[in-house]
């Protein structure tokens, strides 16, 4: 029997665009085909009623009162608490796990082995326990006896690169080539035309995300057909697929929720080890299980920003033209590949040649962290730029402008120089008198920040006048809830309070994971599209009451709906809706977003040359980003970018013991985060000269340049070039004691 062919809709015109796809937080560009977009745009950036204003967060009152419910706050009836047993060895085979004593402890309900027979870093999971209290789970961990066959390990890059170093993975070299780019002969030849050459090795330490809410999940499974997972995640939709496999359920039987989450910074995607173990414990006990990492766990097994070791050589002419660059870049990602943007990053450097390698050690794999690979590359190249500028006695700002093609940077550098008071700067490094020496530095950064077509948004207007915007996305503290509401409220001429949002649930419309600064540019066009469609649906309904205008002639403003000189209140207008209200479905429109952001950072520091102590004085960051959805939260993010970079530049770094193979500072007592006393005057500036009427993600752009700016400021203050972050007092003092030896190179 022949089937009747279904009627096909007329195909819409298509166009090809390049969009970022995020795989575990790492952005990759792919070409996709999308509908040729039509429809109203955002309008000029300075003509918005709610967007581009200073909107307080809609979830602010809940958070400030301590009643916002995070994953860590979930407590379900009969819930068990899980803990993870970690390997004390950096490399070992597990030969036996004896759980007899642990299983006898009252309150211990389940003990499962982790799925590894060989551990390759200290802190690797060996077993997991579920018990009636976290304290009892801790007792059980101490009672488990594990027999290890200890194998040789290596945890430092300079040791791992030696041919005779212990192999991190048997039969595999610790050094893996990841790519070559450029012509080495041409670069070599170009050096001959240089007036000055700078050669240096730049190192960035591994740093930690240090999310205050540790990684973890609560798995609510009681042996039935369905399960709910409360997850501290950056991707509502990245959990249920793998969780369903673990639990033996269908995907649609598992719901993920994430109402509020306590920081991710790139480290929280997917079910993860913590979720896998929680699912297995819950499946075995048929009881809800909460597995939140301890702070120690978080340091040693929840990932980190990969370290870097970069050997750079550049040649420059007296007029500031850079003629050549050679770069050998090692990504220090532990067991993982690590990440590092290729040099010369964003500068024009004539003939360039680079080689990139992954250099493995017995450490947990690095994972994505806010602008993966960029602060590392930026620090090295911005230090190099500074060194070149000083070598040819050219102002570092002028030198950068000369070697940056994009004029957006030119205006931002000029503005930043003005904001920090660059003219006050002593051009002679270390030239100021007295033991407290001030100095200034600058750096620039870039990021994509474009969106993709994943978000499906519903806007429902009910007959009682309430407006609900629903989509499964997550708010990491970036202000997603707030702008989601604001876009709809503005479109319907309402206030923020008139609209409510429902997010953070995998049963709602699909949304992309928050990686690569893609959330706002992916979500906001879909929200806008849904809002426009809802407005048009409502306009059609009320048109007969307003003298039958065309739907697009109906004006929604200030809580009123008007056309043809007639006006009605919102309450009157919604009365025209059907009993079930109306629901519109929004999809992504590429014309409402764009990609490509620019940022510059300027920093001023004061260095006590007797102690090497660095006191940050002032930081300025100028960031463009098309249409700022919410100025208040955008400025907060810029501050956050600067502060996280401040930590990376001056204090933060994982310290590994070569012999034990363990991290020596897996806690806030020894791993120095920026604290209140170190915060300088901070000036976050939104670059309103960017007139693009499009939403672009900025979260990552604003974390990139500050490390270089700060360390360059240390040089300007002291004359000491610290080529390894964090720029701690020991390195500065070393440089001061012997000016001929540049610190660690």
């Amino acid at each position, binding site marked *: 029997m022949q089937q009747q062919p279904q009627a096909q809709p007329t195909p819409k015109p298509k166009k090809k665009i390049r969009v970022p796809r995020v795989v575990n937080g790492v952005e990759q560009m792919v070409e996709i085909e999308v509908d040729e977009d039509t429809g109203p745009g955002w309008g000029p950036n300075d003509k918005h009623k709610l967007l581009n204003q200073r909107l*307080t967060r809609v979830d602010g*009152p*809940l958070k400030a009162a301590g009643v916002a419910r995070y994953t*860590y*706050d979930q407590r379900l009836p009969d819930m068990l608490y899980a803990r993870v047993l970690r390997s004390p060895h950096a490399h070992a085979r597990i030969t036996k796990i004896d759980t007899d004593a642990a299983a006898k402890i009252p309150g211990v309900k389940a003990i499962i082995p982790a799925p590894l027979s060989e551990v390759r870093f200290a802190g690797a999971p060996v077993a997991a326990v579920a018990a009636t209290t976290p*304290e009892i789970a801790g007792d059980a961990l101490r009672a488990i006896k594990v027999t290890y066959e200890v194998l040789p390990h290596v945890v430092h890059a300079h040791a791992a690169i030696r041919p005779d170093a212990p192999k991190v993975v048997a039969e595999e070299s610790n050094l893996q080539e990841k790519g070559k780019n450029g012509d080495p002969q041409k670069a070599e030849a170009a050096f001959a035309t240089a007036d000055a050459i700078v050669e240096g090795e730049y190192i960035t330490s591994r740093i930690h995300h240090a999310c205050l809410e540790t990684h973890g999940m609560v798995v609510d499974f009681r042996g039935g057909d369905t399960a709910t997972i409360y997850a501290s995640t950056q991707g509502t939709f990245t959990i249920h697929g793998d969780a369903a496999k673990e639990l033996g359920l269908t995907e649609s039987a598992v719901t993920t929720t994430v109402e509020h989450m306590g920081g991710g910074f790139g480290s929280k995607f997917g079910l993860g080890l913590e979720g896998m173990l929680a699912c297995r414990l819950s499946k075995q006990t048929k009881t809800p299980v909460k597995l939140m990492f301890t*702070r120690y766990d978080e340091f040693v097994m929840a990932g980190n920003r990969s370290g870097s070791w970069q050997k750079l050589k550049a040649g420059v002419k007296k007029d500031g033209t850079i003629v050549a660059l050679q770069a050998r870049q090692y990504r220090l990602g532990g067991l993982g590949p690590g990440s590092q943007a290729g040099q010369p990053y964003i500068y024009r450097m004539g003939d360039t040649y680079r080689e990139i390698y992954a250099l493995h050690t017995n450490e947990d794999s690095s994972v994505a962290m806010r602008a993966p690979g960029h602060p590392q590359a930026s620090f090295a190249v911005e230090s190099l730029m500074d060194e070149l500028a000083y070598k040819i006695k050219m102002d570092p700002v002028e030198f950068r402008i000369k070697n940056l093609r994009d004029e957006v940077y030119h205006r931002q550098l000029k503005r930043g120089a003005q904001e920090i008071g660059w003219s006050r700067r002593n051009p002679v490094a270390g030239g100021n008198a007295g033991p407290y020496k001030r100095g200034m530095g600058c750096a620039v950064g870039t990021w994509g920040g474009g969106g993709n077509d994943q978000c499906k948004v519903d806007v429902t207007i009910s007959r009682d006048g309430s407006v609900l915007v629903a989509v499964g996305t997550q708010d990491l503290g970036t202000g997603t809830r707030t702008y989601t509401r604001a876009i709809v409220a503005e479109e319907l001429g309402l206030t923020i309070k008139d609209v409510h949002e429902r997010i953070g649930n995998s049963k709602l419309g699909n949304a992309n994971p928050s990686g690569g600064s893609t959330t706002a540019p992916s979500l906001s066009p879909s929200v806008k599209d849904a809002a426009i469609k809802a407005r048009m649906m409502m306009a059609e309904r009320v048109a007969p009451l307003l003298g039958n205008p065309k739907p697009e002639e109906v004006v929604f403003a200030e809580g009123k709906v008007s056309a043809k000189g007639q006006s009605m209140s919102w309450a009157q207008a919604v009365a025209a809706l059907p009993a079930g209200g109306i629901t519109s479905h929004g999809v992504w429109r590429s014309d409402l977003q764009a990609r490509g952001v620019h940022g510059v950072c300027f920093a001023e520091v004061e260095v006590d040359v007797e102690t090497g102590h660095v006191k940050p004085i002032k930081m300025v960051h100028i960031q463009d980003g098309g249409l700022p959805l919410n100025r208040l939260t955008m400025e907060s993010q810029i501050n*956050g970018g600067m502060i996280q970079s401040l930590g990376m530049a001056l204090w933060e770094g994982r310290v590994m013991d070569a012999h034990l193979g363990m991290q020596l500072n897996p*806690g806030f007592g020894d791993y120095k985060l920026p604290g209140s006393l170190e*915060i300088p005057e901070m000036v976050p500036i939104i670059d309103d000269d960017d007139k693009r009427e499009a939403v672009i993600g900025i979260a990552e752009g604003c974390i990139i340049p500050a490390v270089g700016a700060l360390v360059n400021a240390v040089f300007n203050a002291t004359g000491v070039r610290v080529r390894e972050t964090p720029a701690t007092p020991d390195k500065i003092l070393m440089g001061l004691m012997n000016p001929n030896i540049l610190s660690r190179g």
Partner: protein
Amino acid sequence: MTKSRDDRDDQNKANHDPGRRRFLKGMGIAGAGAAIADHLWTDAEAKEAAATPETLSGSVRVVLDVNGKQREAQVEPRTTLLNTLRNHLDPAVTGPKLVCDVGTCGACTVLLDGKPVYSCLVLAVDATNKKITTVEGLGTPENPNAVQAAFVEQDGLMCGFCTPGFVTTISAYLKKNPNPSLAEVKEACKGNFCRCGTYPRVFEAALAAAKGSSV
């Protein structure tokens, strides 16, 4: 070995004071277990403990005065006040957050008889007969105190996980010093960590709250 490090009078005055600053002062230099034990167990306390043979084990019933309500829980003696609030009271009190569990981050700050303490460093059995105020007891979303309202207005929060600790710390501090300078606010907040990087606006919120009205 560490007694001389701390001022004797200070120690005698506050035998049972688990104040955050005082504790951190003891922690800061060494962080060694001995130093902590030595610090927390003054001679007087040690004698008192020796003279009282009672050992708490198994689980004990505690009655806690939390935000003005008598709350009961059955906990092991080793259970911290923080874990008791979060895991054993029903309904749970989850404003104070568990972040480090070792007194380094301030996210679990509560007021014990009006003084800010790290509730991860206080045992529930030591918190009986004391007035415990958590962030929830300072105000509600509908009726926030001046600090909570200022945090929202000034955007003193992003992910919000550190916020209860900061709000509690600052609320207590402003009672002590209703008109602080920026430097004093920074000093008051030094026992609290934020990772998102909201500090500048936390300071602004504290100053705005001080200016605005009583806490």
